[in-house]
């Protein structure tokens, strides 16, 4: 078990189904709060293709973060079906989901969630190490990613020595270093000032347009959502609308 865990990378298919990054069918999720059952998701059907930049919007408590967690494999106890990179999450155990996440997903959070005890470079290297990719390649790849997000001069700084915008750039580098099939972003600009937020969104847009990186962004900020190609609105655990954003609107934002 130790050798399997530490030395031999498990090969996980990156793209089980060509073109589809994630698909949900009849997805439901309930929370038990004492004797009260809260239906956070009440039957979601959704498909996100590779290369899309999707925004999920809705009021607080509508279930958008829960939807992200279920689609990303962070939640295992749900109803319905989720296929992530072609793999059914219902058939996977907790550790198998973890390994799948390491291979095909990246995360960007509102509070950045960098490991405070590691510097920027070490933070970015972590996904590579977790997925079993070692050697000199790890360091050079991480350095390239930091350079790509404009953080080449802050590689050896710990998160406490970086501004919010800089930390989020490092988080983006970390999310992308493993070339994931899909990047999940939960309120990525929530803790940033407007200039930093705009810069971050511009970076994501650039990565999506130039490299075809798939992003799913959960937000309640309209200007963030306007960067997306596709806008999904949720209310009370259901998808209300699922619209394509006209390119003119995206260009204007």
């Amino acid at each position: 078990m130790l050798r399997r865990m530490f030395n031999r990378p498990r090969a996980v298919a990156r793209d089980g189904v060509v073109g589809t990054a994630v698909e949900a069918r009849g997805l439901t999720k309930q929370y038990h709060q004492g004797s009260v059952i809260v239906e956070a998701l009440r039957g979601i059907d959704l498909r996100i293709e590779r290369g899309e930049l999707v925004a999920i919007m809705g009021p607080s408590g509508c279930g958008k973060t829960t939807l992200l967690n279920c689609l990303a494999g962070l939640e295992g106890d749900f109803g319905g079906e989720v296929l992530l990179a072609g793999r059914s999450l219902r058939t996977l155990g907790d550790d198998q989901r973890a390994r799948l996440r390491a291979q095909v997903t990246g995360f960007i959070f509102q509070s950045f969630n960098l490991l405070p005890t590691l510097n920027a470079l070490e933070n970015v290297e972590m996904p590579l190490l977790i997925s079993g990719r070692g050697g000199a390649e790890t360091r050079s790849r991480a350095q390239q990613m930091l350079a790509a997000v404009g953080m080449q001069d802050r590689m050896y700084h710990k998160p406490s020595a970086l501004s919010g915008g800089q930390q989020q750039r490092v988080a983006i580098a970390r999310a992308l270093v493993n070339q994931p099939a899909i990047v999940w972003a939960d309120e990525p600009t929530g803790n940033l000032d407007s200039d930093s937020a705009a810069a971050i969104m511009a970076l994501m847009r650039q990565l999506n347009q130039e490299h075809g990186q798939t992003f799913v962004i959960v937000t309640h900020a309209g200007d963030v959502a306007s960067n997306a190609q596709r806008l999904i609105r949720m209310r009370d655990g259901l998808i209300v609308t699922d619209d394509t954003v006209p390119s003119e609107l995206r260009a204007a934002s």
Partner: protein
Amino acid sequence: MQFFNWPVTLVTWVLALTTAVLLLGCAGVAWRAPILRQLGLRNIGRRRLRAVLIIGGLMLSTTVIGTAFGTGDTITYTLRSVITGSLGSVDEVVARSPRRVRLGQQVQALTEPGLGALAIANPDFFAQPESDRVIQALHNSSVIGGVAPVIITQVTVVHSSSQQLQSNVTLLAIAPDYPLAFGSLIGTDGKPVDLATLAQGQVVLNAAASDALDAAVGEPLDLLHNDAIWTVHIARVVKNGGLGGEEPLLLVPLVQYQRVSQHEGQVNQLLVANHGGADSVAHSAAATVELRKLLVDNTAAQQLHALLGRPDVQRDILVGEGIVDAPTRLQLDALRSAAAQPELTDRFISLISEPRLRQRLFGLGRMLPNASDRSTTFTALQNVATLSVLDIKQIALDQASEYGAVITTIFLVLGIFSIAAAILLIFLIFALLAADRGMELATMRALGMRRHQIMIMFLLEGVVYDLCGAVLGTFVSAGSSYLLVRALGQSLAPFGVQIEPHLAPSSLLLTASAGMLLTFVMMLAAAWRVSSTDLMAGVRGEGGSLSKPVLIGAGALLLLTALLVWSRWHAPLDEYSGRSALVLPTTLALIVAGLTCFSSGILRGRTFLGGRDLPGSLATLAGLANIIIWLRALGQLAGPRGGVNGAGVTIAIAGIILIIATVWTGIRSMGPVLLAIDYALTALPRLRAVVRPAAGYLGYQRWRAGLTVIMFGMIILTMVMSTTLIHVAIGTYVGSEPPVAGYDLRADVRGSSLGDLHTALGSARAVKASDFTATGSLATQEAEIIQLGLPRASWTSTSLIIVDDDFLTRIHTGMQRRLASYSSDAAVWTAVQKNPGTAVALDRNSNVINSDVPGATLPLWARPTTGGQPIKLTVLGIIDGRSELDAGIYVSRTTAAGLGITLPTSSSYFFAVQPGLRMQDVMHGLQLSFADQGLAVSDLEGTFRLISAFRLLLIRVIQGFLGLGLLAGIAALGLLGIQAVLERRQQLGMLRALGFTRGQTRATLACESTVVAAVGIAVGLGLGLILARSLVAVLSTQYGGLRFSVPWSEVGLTVALPVLGSSLSILLTAIQAGRVAPADALRVGAE
């Protein structure tokens, strides 16, 4: 009782009052600041689990202290009970020392039976009218309640009906009209007993004697004494206690025994009882002075007064003071002052009559250059008090208190590390508490709360934990003391010592106060640290740092303290001792600390060698410097300037500082080490992914981790040290070989000799010669020896042990050293048998034989003290000091014949028992067969087995005590782990989101805790062995024969326990970490 030279009562009251003042102060502040009180106390109910953990941790330090005191109290109480039980109502004893005993050994002879014994070893008889004079003079004494002339002797008692024999029963012959101060004799039937009603040939037994002999009223007993048998009948059995004592005792009317023993008109002791009932011993000092004044020979006292008052003699005595112990030095100092007075004072008379001081004066008198002065001194000392007064109960109680204090001090010294670990645990708890509230407290500061208000809030919360922890700890310590004492009691019961747990209320008060104060001081430090954290650093969740002025000020203060310490204590302690071993290393350590603080302030922000922090590097070097300073101090303890005095405390302090300095240096150097480990795992990316967060966290929380390593290390150090020391001590003095290799039983005659042993066995009624595979006998001849060739050769008293050929053939006890020309120890014994003029010696404290001359053949001359020819002896070997043989020079009968005197008859016999026979049956048979000679038989193997069992149990008992501190270490590890999980919940969630499996999450937490535990164990193990080695080196300068060796199996077992404990703690932490659900953890962080 003294506690590190301070009266325990004083320490107790000071601590209790200080604690009370602090508690009242806190109560006053709480009343005056209700909002702060509310803010502080609300957290207790909100975090109940945390509160329980905190109180549990605080309880531990109090428990360690309380257990040490409880154990010491019990030992003191037990010994005092034994003594007061044995001595009953007797406070002082007046006796004449036996004539055949050398004058310089009077005290030893008078107290030979041991602690609390009523009987004095065979004192000489004196005329009863002498005692009548004393009784008459003390008729109206305000302190002395009664004086009883008695005869006390030891007899062998045989109860034929039950076939029971007791060989050392005390017989007390006393007049029926003895003073009431001695109490009444009450029978076991509850009725009073009057010795006057006893008929001729009737005796009274106490209950202890009745039980031992299985004898009842009316039954006959045979008393064997001085080659005579006296058959008596038991008239009554009295309760133990009072005049009856607790040991087996026979009471006989004085006149009756005088007639039977042919000592009409003579007694051998005066028993003295003071006024005051149960507190009669309080009058001992005054009673002793009064008695000595009556008994002194004024002419001899005047002679001594005149002699000791002379300036030249005073100067010589002053020189002599350098070679005696501190209490005797004080007495000599008082004697010099009294002798300088123009008149003979009561004080002088009392001092000069005191047997132990007289014994010392004999030795000092030898140093007088003038032969006439020496002669006058010896004669006057001999005559000044022909009857000696011993305040026997006070002496015994003082010894009991001393033993109790020794036990308490031993446990406290051993417990110093445990207590230090517990103190660190307290600090860690409050530091974690502060860290947990970092953001909250910083926000309060941002809202306008001042630093002192933060401190008050923190302290008020802490006082509640403190009070609960101290009270609980006090009760738990009572329980742990009880368990410890029970275990000790089990180990000592085979030796006939009964221990019952006893805890003085003052000890409970001391325990609670000490625990509270220690906790309060640590709380104060943590509160100050929390309140002085930089505001923005707190908001960002960072720790604070000391400001430049504070660092510079602290540095200056430390340097000033170093100067004060050196100027105050650098001189030798007194005229007789060198400087305390602590002074130099303490001064150097203070200088290093001061310079480090000073430079940290002055050089803040400076870098060198490409960006390395200069003050930080200097701080690292300071740690290294302390390691060198204290290791050197340890090395010097056994050197020419070292000594045993103060070595224990120096080693304890050195141990604490070495652990701190080692961990400090390690923490400050851990960056490159962690980098190197990370780099080394390049080829193992998944392992590297697990290790990296762990290494990062350890580097990030290095101080917290360091504290835990120190705590763990201290406990392991103490356990390893104590295990090793016990192994060395027991191994040196007991060893693994039987005490007299070759024999199973030893028998000593109290009366006349058995004569030829083979003949005696042939006619014995309860044993046969065929019961034994071998026998041997030895006789003792008092002699003097001189070892020529030494720089200061002089005649020294010793014993010539004359052994028969049977003994020399059978004995194979090993030699500590032997001449190189002999290939084996057996060859040495054979040579002693076959070559006249050869000998072997047993000299435990190297007092007699100087055996350190390399390659020497140790020729010496011996002469008997009773006249005769000197003979030259060649000592072929030194007998192993762990042997149960008597100290002396062992020669064959052929060699001894050269002395030209009638050799003494054998007094001790050795027997090797046939396999298959029960040892107890053979012992009993020997005692019965030779009851006329008062044969006392002991089982050599049995004693050896008991001591071996005692050794193991002693190790376990001490480890059990130290295990309390181990709990502190394991608790700290657990706390650190739990805190790591709680405060990194979001990070753990992120790692899970990135792809960490549950196993990897558990592994990373386990890795952190394992490193902390492993480093702590390694540091503790290494330093424990170093300290043990240092202590053995110091002790061996005084107690020759101590040899350092490491009991690896026992040390391994000792270390296994903390490894198991820490593994459990690590496992629980890891399991908790593995349970973190990523979505929940990330959601908490996002809220």
